[in-house]
């Protein structure tokens, strides 16, 4: 993770390569996950982020190592962009004890204390109150940290969304709410689930600052996230960032996608955040074709190593079934 300070992204060649590499890492990792799912190496639900990579990568550029992240069940991209090793994430998908959650969580429950990554929460809307609480703790402890909470537009219909928005605004807590609006809550289109489809307007009801950004443009997301985080760190309370984006693949691996047309999907694929950014950077001479090739080969090697790590991982002994339900207590 690069940790540039300040409210504006500095698009030097190193940073351009970094942004592209992060998005490519997520894309190739998930393509491999889909393949491994068909081989039954990965089981359960698998929710892919393909198409939405610019959001996690862009927002993470604005965060510092001691900020907190709360994410959803579609969080592989956030985990990788946050800096959790690809090997431990892949091992988690396998359910191996070398996984970042010791294999207990799987695809939907990636956690990592070292990077303050608080899940991997698979109850829609359920992560938002946790982010409010993390921010409340920071406030009470006098720590100048930000809690960033990612959720989809489907969560906006949940009561927990509204309760959390109100609490964060009422108490002026340092929460960055990031709504990744990919237009479908599983298979239900936005206009079928919301009376107000311009989602960022909902922040106004809580007197919370908000911004809409093109979630297919990593630079725009980074810039917006930097503005938002700067406002939060300046003590202006929470900020609501709506990223308009699109999921290229099915909701999960069990989805026949009856609810949207192929034409629509194809139209959005023309806005692929990776292709778009690559073409722009090549045209602006911020990137050389050789850079792209190097990134692809580095990422391919990283993905292969992650698969090897997961394959070499071990199954937790069944005797340990009930560990980590309670914190072990010192014998009294």
């Amino acid at each position, binding site marked *: 993770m690069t940790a540039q300070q300040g409210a504006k992204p500095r698009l030097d060649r190193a940073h351009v390569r970094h942004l592209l590499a992060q998005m490519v890492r997520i894309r190739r990792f998930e393509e491999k996950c889909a393949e491994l799912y068909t081989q039954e190496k990965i089981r359960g639900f698998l929710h892919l982020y393909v198409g939405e990579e610019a959001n996690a990568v862009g927002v993470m550029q604005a965060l510092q190592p001691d900020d907190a992240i709360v994410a959803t069940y579609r969080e592989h991209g956030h985990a990788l962009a946050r800096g959790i090793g690809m090997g431990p994430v892949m091992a988690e998908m396998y359910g191996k004890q070398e*996984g*970042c959650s010791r294999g*207990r969580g799987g695809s939907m429950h990636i956690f990592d204390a070292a990077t303050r990554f608080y899940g991997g*929460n698979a109850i829609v809307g359920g992560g938002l*109150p946790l982010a*409010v609480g993390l921010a409340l703790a920071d406030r009470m402890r006098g720590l100048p940290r930000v809690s960033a909470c990612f959720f989809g537009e489907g969560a906006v219909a949940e009561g927990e969304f509204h*309760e959390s928005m109100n609490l964060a605004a009422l108490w002026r807590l340092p929460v960055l709410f990031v709504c990744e609006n990919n237009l479908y809550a599983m298979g239900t289109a936005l206009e079928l689930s919301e009376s107000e489809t311009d989602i960022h307007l909902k922040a106004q009801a809580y007197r919370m600052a908000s911004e809409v950004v093109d979630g297919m443009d990593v630079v725009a997301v980074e810039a917006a996230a930097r503005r938002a985080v700067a406002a939060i760190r300046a003590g202006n309370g929470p900020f609501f960032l709506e990223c308009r984006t699109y999921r290229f693949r099915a909701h999960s691996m069990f989805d026949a996608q009856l609810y949207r047309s192929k034409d629509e999907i194809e139209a959005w694929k023309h806005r692929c955040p990776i292709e778009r950014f690559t073409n722009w950077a090549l045209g602006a001479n911020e990137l050389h074709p050789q850079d792209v090739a190097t990134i692809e080969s580095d990422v391919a090697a990283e993905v292969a190593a992650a698969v090897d790590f997961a394959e070499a991982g071990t199954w937790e002994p069944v005797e340990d079934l009930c560990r980590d*339900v309670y914190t072990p207590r010192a014998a009294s």
Partner: protein
Amino acid sequence: MSSPAVTTTYREAVRAAIREAMQRDERVFLMGEDVGRYGGCYAVSKGLLDEFGPERIRDTPLSEAGFVGAGIGAAMGGMRPIVEVMTVNFSMLCLDQILNSAATIRHMSGGQFSIPVVIRMATGAGRQLAAQHSHSLENIYAHIPGIRVVAPATLADARGMLWTALEDPDPVMIFENVMLYNMSGELAADAGAVDIDRAAIRRPGRDVSLITYGGSLAKTLAAAEQLAGDGIEAEVIDLRTLRPLDDATIMESVGRTRRAVIVDEGWRTGSLAAEIGSRIVEQCFWSLDAPVGRVCSAEVPIPYPKHLEDAALPQVPSIVAAARAALGR
């Protein structure tokens, strides 16, 4: 030597416990609906706002899922929150956060994050508050691995369980029966933390084990007193902790008395009493001289009129009758 006793109430004992915790540990704060300016819906936190200020005695909007979830998040963020929910019926609005977040995150994260939150709430019937404020749903929480559930039934436990719960690295739920808040009695002036692991024998006896907790303890003790007048020596066990259950104390008692009656203000079907009864059958079957008896609430939402509310709950005569049935006399 024990210190001199003072006269106090259950409400004052809980308040003293909160005050002491706030004084001892700056990470502790109280959060909930009307805990500050109003003084708590059962007046438990009355006066604490003036003492500790609005940051630490934090009034919340009516957002159970929001503020209970925020308590869980704050606990992960290094604080030691005491979250008050008005009544267990309202806690259904934050069941998601308690079940899906507080109880699971330690496990889902492979042990990386503990949740040292304490969630207190009132439970139980008896104040004619009808069917949305009167139930005893602690059994629902006692079903859930990952949390600890306690039910103080005495002044000493009302005073002492909170600090121990706050020291616990995992989520602890404290159920305070509404009929106990006005209970007064003597408490040692230096009363402090107590364990939250073991059941307590509140009255020793040899003929039958009466197993209960919370708001039914006083009724069960009254029943034991009445039985003693007829020459029946009932032992009364106060469970104190509903999860994990202290099997050892229960089985040791039933092994001696060979008869057991469980008194539980929850509904009979799927009750804590059913769980305890099963455990007794599993572990003490060959010691039993009689079927395990149960006195539970009637299978009805708690009604408003006093005579019907009384009829719905375990009462002294029904406990006496169940004990006599176990003894066959």
